[in-house]
């Protein structure tokens, strides 16, 4: 995915102005900035939910981004396992991924029966199960304690070894956890 000089504005108010980046070849980019600086808008642009006002996003044929949204967006009526399994690429075991996310004991629980941090990890497991590239992560470690962040970051890197990653975060330390090559400040 190549982002070429994109801008986006809501009415008169510019949100993103002339942003370029290359999310390919396993590149890892962290995007940082205060609230309201367009980080989530950028995610929507990359997913194709919004169209840039100017500039282009070039997607390679067959490209399918996987995403961890800022909100967990788990289907409330399905267990953690079913949530992950519903998005799993053929041949990928959602069960293994949930175990990786330390949810082995809780995979049959509904989202409402999980703590905030557990729901977060279930959302990460779902994104990894999809086996998409690039991997778009909007504050993926929200609600996880420092030790857990480190472990989960390590497993994301193991599982998405060759994928390009876009990390949206407030915390520069997290960019380090995911071994980012570049930090863009909005």
């Amino acid at each position, binding site marked *: 995915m190549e982002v070429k000089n994109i801008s986006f504005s809501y009415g008169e108010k510019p949100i993103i102005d002339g942003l370029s980046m290359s999310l390919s070849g396993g590149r890892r980019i962290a995007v940082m900035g205060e609230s309201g600086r367009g980080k989530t808008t950028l995610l929507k642009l990359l*997913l194709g*939910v919004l169209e840039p006002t100017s500039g282009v996003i070039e997607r390679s044929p067959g490209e*399918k*981004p*996987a*995403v961890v*949204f800022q*909100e967990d*967006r788990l*289907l*409330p*009526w*399905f267990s953690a396992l079913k949530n992950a399994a*519903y*998005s799993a690429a053929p041949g990928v075991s959602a069960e293994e991924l949930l175990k990786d996310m330390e949810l082995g004991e809780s995979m049959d629980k*509904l989202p*409402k029966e999980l703590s905030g941090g557990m729901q977060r990890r279930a959302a990460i497991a*779902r994104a990894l199960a*999809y086996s998409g590239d690039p991997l778009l992560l909007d504050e993926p470690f929200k609600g996880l304690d420092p030790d857990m962040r480190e472990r989960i970051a390590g497993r994301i890197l193991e599982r998405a070894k060759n994928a390009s990653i876009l990390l949206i975060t407030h915390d520069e330390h997290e960019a380090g956890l995911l071994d980012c090559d570049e930090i863009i400040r909005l």
Partner: protein
Amino acid sequence: MRRFFKNKIVKKALIAAVWLLIWQAAAWAVGSKLLLPSPVETAKALASLAVTGTFWKSCLLTLLRVFAGFFLGVIAGAVLGVATAASGFLDELLSPLRSIVKATPVTSFIILVLLYLTSSLTPMFIAFLMVLPIVWANVLSGIKATDAQLLEMADAFGYTKAKKLSAVYAPSVLPHFLSACTTGLGFAWKSGVTAEVIAHPAFGMGKYIYESKLYLETPELFAWTAAVVILSFLLEKLVLLLLGRIVRWK
């Protein structure tokens, strides 16, 4: 002693007893079973009805008519709900129809429908007509209220249309649909019996309510009404029980 009164069943039994006493006192005060039969007289009338074949046949036929109308209304309402959610034009085209059906008094419909249908089919059609707009409106609003973030998620993860329907839309609409079914069942039941009162089918609880009134058999009138209320209560409990089982995540 206090604990005894806090027991739910005891409490409900006591409340029922209080109201039965009030009824009994009122019957004594009126002093005529023609005007107001007592609970005991009503129970006696119900007991003597319950040993007749006519009573059970009427209950069964009323239940069948109401259920058939209810079932068809639920299906038609769900189909129209989905269709009007998918097409704004269709929604605009059909919404006056929904409003008219909702606003027209049920007795007008009964008399009108009797011109076209038999007295046995009229209660069924009336039950259908009462359920249809309720299920339709609820399914429509349920679809419209589906969480946009979940739909965006489904698109992001490449859900097919069928998967989106079964994993996102259907579970979101289900609580709306089920609550429409509970409300609709109550309406179907009451309107179905009312239609029987007016349409006079060969057998039917509504028919005998009317005949009891006609022959001034007030204890029977009360007994039939009590049977309608008891059946309605049981049906509602049954639906609520099913509803609670289906929507586990709420």
